[in-house]
């Protein structure tokens, strides 16, 4: 068995013995070190990379706290953080019957029609946001035929639910989703 080595430790140093020399009072050394520590902290904060990529963000986060404290409603917090990813599945859930199967549009169609493209049409994201709606992914060819509702964007970026009453409407929607 190896012998125990000397681990760097400051156990004995943390309480420096009283000096035998007639120097300055210990508190003066501590105040000097406090000033040095403060200057070094400021220096770390002011370094260009830290200032730009870290401290600027930290300060902004701090400034946001009072406003956030005024808005503790969980629904609003979800809405402001997730935007369409949270709201669109909610809107669909409110406007669909329990027996309906909603056809999730492909990502490309959503990206083409939303200013800030969301990924709510991903089956997992949709299920995370709302599990009440029965959905089928666009990529799932076999289930597509059973879908009863789909979503289209209007010219102003608004959304409309479409009933897939027959194969003709279903194919029309599928073609629209696939159009480049």
């Amino acid at each position, binding site marked *: 068995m*190896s012998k125990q080595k000397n681990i760097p430790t400051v156990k004995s140093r943390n309480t420096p013995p009283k000096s035998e020399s007639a120097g300055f009072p210990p508190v003066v050394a501590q105040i000097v070190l406090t000033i040095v520590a403060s200057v070094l902290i400021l220096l*770390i904060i002011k370094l260009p990379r830290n200032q730009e990529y*870290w401290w600027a963000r930290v300060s902004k986060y701090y400034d946001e706290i009072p406003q956030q404290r005024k808005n503790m409603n969980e629904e609003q917090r979800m809405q402001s953080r997730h935007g369409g990813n949270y709201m669109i599945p909610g809107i669909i859930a409110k406007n669909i019957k329990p027996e309906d199967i909603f056809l999730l549009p492909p990502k490309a169609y959503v990206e083409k029609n939303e200013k800030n493209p969301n990924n709510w049409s991903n089956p*997992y994201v*949709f299920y995370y946001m709302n599990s009440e709606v029965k959905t089928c992914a666009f990529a799932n060819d076999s289930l597509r035929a059973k879908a009863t509702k789909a979503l289209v964007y209007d010219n102003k970026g608004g959304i409309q639910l479409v009933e897939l009453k027959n194969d003709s409407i279903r194919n029309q929607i599928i073609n629209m989703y696939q159009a480049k």
Partner: protein
Amino acid sequence: MILVYILLHLIAGLGIVAHFDAVRKRAEVIGLAVLTGMGIHTLLIYIMGLLDISLSTGSVLGGMIGISLLCHIAYKKTVSLIQDLIKSPFDFKIYEIPFLIIGTYLVYISSWRAYYLPVTPYDAIVGMDMVAKYAVKEGHVISSAFSHPNLSGHLQNQMFYAPFTTFCQIIYRLGGHTVGQTWLGVVVAAFTLWMYGKMRSVTHPVIAGLCALLLMAIPEMYAYSFMFLTDYSTAVFFGMGVVYFYTASQDNSLKTWILSALMFGFSIWSRSDSAVFIPFGCLVILGIYRKDGIASALTKAGIFGGIPFVFFALWNIVFFQLLPKVPENQIAEGAGNIGNLLATYSDIVNKLIMNEIYYGYAFIILIIWFILNLAVTRSMKGWEASVWILILFIGFGLIVNLFTAASIDNTIKRGFFRFFPVIYFYIAISPLSQKITEWVYRFEKRG
């Protein structure tokens, strides 16, 4: 409820930490106990999932209380630890106040955002928090998230990530924190306290404070101190594992080796790819103890490798048997190609190590400090910690080459968080830092 949870983490953790004589400094004990307690409580959720015990606020809270008390079965050790903590002098110095202020400010902002902001990262939404949300909603760890028809034909690997973060989220969701990732704030606060306390015990408090601040000032890492992913937690436990690896190599205590292995185990419990680094640690141990005989070397290396493997197996082998579907084999084709591997290392250096936005000054500081240390002290003391920087670099290249899902831009970018506690701990224990520490204490003593 959050205060009750923190108290329970602390109580459970104290029962475990009491067994390790290497941990007796107040801040270090509290930080380590809270984090260990969190790990223990996630094991409770694991057992409840394994036995299909219904999850509810009452059942989980009752289980947490029970397991926390069970951790004190050797209560005399806890009593002895608490007596040691009470007896140890309170040696806070006024020059620590600036660090206390800035540290509190940063931890406050991070904890607030972890508490306030809904879970945002895509990986968490389709993975860990999805599992947690439906486990709480349906009362079972194995919920519809794994089998719902809406998700048929799709497989998100994120759902199968190691469970520490998922289970923490389950506990805190059941405690009423249905929006946010409140537990992450607890991890950040406990880790910051532990890191400062540990570094303060090996170097001057001003150097310890500067190292802790530089660690917190890493832009990408700070951003994930309030965003729910597995990377921050795994880096925390990995860093603690390396610190106790170094401590064990110095005090030669089997118990400290067990503590190090336990922390590496929790790192794997947070993110399975941490397992890639463990064999390298075993090799280092064999190197350290080669002169003491093969039996001693193999025992320590075996413990060091064995405990993390148990954590790996509990999830990836045992629990996966219960899941309705599991990820397919993720070993990449051409994984053993040396040309690919070298190209990967080149990419890692160019895209990550030289990147100024992600990690601020961390790698520049490391390189400058390493050279300065060699020039001034001509000593490699502390290599048992710094070798992990090399191990991490080698391991990340292997991860990118071995696993199809691993990418430099995501997996490794955040996986790099494991470097930073190691880098700043190495700086704190380096001979150069020890020289400066002695100089500063001499300055103080002149008073």
